[in-house]
């Protein structure tokens, strides 16, 4: 009887250790899947953000492939789209005017248009590293009906 108990005990210990390893690898695989899903979602977001009616150019009720900077000034995505941006992982989203001038200034209704950085979505989170993705965009300035080159930047915060 003693021998049977010892065999059963050893078997259970080996089983537990095996299952522990199995779950550890399984969790690592799920985390890896979640991270790649996050990168994929943010890549998709690069194109979907530029077509958001809240910031996309609209001329005579027809949309144009550019970002209306005056809409960026008056629309607060951090308040309105919190769930949309936090769907898979945390990210910071902003637009930068690259040409003809790049300054350090953050764009507000007061500093516009002598500025370059339009912060679109900024979560209040701590992070240790980030993955940066960007795509070129055309920025429209309705006050003088001009277009400038810029980029949309998404920083995936980790």
């Amino acid at each position, binding site marked *: 009887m003693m021998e*049977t108990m010892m065999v059963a005990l050893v078997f259970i210990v080996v089983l537990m250790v095996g*299952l522990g390893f199995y779950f550890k690898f399984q969790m690592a695989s799920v985390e890896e899947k979640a991270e790649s899903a996050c990168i994929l*979602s943010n890549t998709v977001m690069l194109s979907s953000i530029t077509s958001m*009616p809240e910031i996309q150019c609209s001329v005579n009720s027809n949309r144009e492939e550019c970002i209306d900077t005056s809409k960026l000034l008056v629309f607060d995505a951090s308040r309105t789209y919190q769930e949309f941006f936090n769907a898979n992982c945390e990210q910071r989203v902003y637009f930068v005017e690259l040409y003809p001038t790049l300054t350090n200034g953050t764009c507000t209704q007061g500093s516009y248009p002598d500025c370059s950085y339009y912060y679109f979505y900024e979560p209040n989170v701590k992070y240790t590293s980030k993955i940066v993705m960007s795509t070129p965009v055309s920025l429209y300035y309705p006050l003088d009906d001009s277009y400038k080159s810029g980029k949309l930047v998404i920083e995936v915060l980790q």
Partner: protein
Amino acid sequence: MQNKAQMSSAMNYLFAIIIGGIIFMFFVGFAYKFMGFSGNVNAASLVSSLNDEFAAFSASDSAEKTLTFRQEASFRVYEGRVISNEQTQYIDHIVFAPYLIEGKEIFISTKALDIPYRVGNVFYVDDGKTLYILVYDSNTEEAVEELTGSYNSVPTNLPTLKVSVNEFGNNVEELVAAANKYEKVRFVFFTKYDSVLSLIQGNFESYEILQVSSSEEDYAYGNMMYPSGEQVVYLGYPLLIGAMISGDAYMYEYNLGLVEEKISRVSNVYIEKAKFLAMRLPECDYVILKSALSSYQSIIGSESYSVYMNSIENVENENKKLGGGCPEVF
């Protein structure tokens, strides 16, 4: 002595059976838990991939796609959530769908919603198990033509037929043959159906009748009556198509609420933009447009499509009056 040895052996067997039983139960429990875990991971990845498809589609004015799954997918799109295998994920998209979507092939499509400016995209998800038959008369033939053979048409991945109410009797066998390939038929009447109701009752097993009514010649705005007798308002063809495929009036109205939220949000952006332009360009008059936009925002939630139409027309006209040195707002 022999009796004692026999007893000890029997105890060993009993003990081995108990331990064996416990281990067996542990494995069975583990297998069930793993199946649940694996199902949840699959469901989460289904929901996540659908979300990405919607996001990618939102850049397009009109698009269609068939999603093919390795195994049978089964999910619901309800109250802004995709629900699959007890996994729920909220989606920030307006998705019209039947009660339940099942199959290895799922059809998704989208249309941009412009009322009068673009407020976003609406999405349709369907499993192709319902046949939609649009029934018209001489007054509504053009409207149905618009819904079947133009830029505004019902997505081609939704099985759709059209038939004149006067020709219904002559075509009933053909319609029954077509309907037999599907689980259900939804008749969408752009005319009265009293004259053909007995034909439908006598020839079709699983069917539903929806009734569209409008005072507009093109039926772009109007009302839709569900089989339950509930009436809903639609604003533009994309919402009419949404009402056609929605499981019931409640499911449609939930999405209409999201559309109204979008209208309010985008209108607010344009009101703020008009204020900003007025501040920077004091020589331009944005007061009337601002007031038209505010008035449009205030009628959101109205149950009358004509109230919406008047407001939309007013906003559009005031925006058109701008131009030159005074940039249009949208």
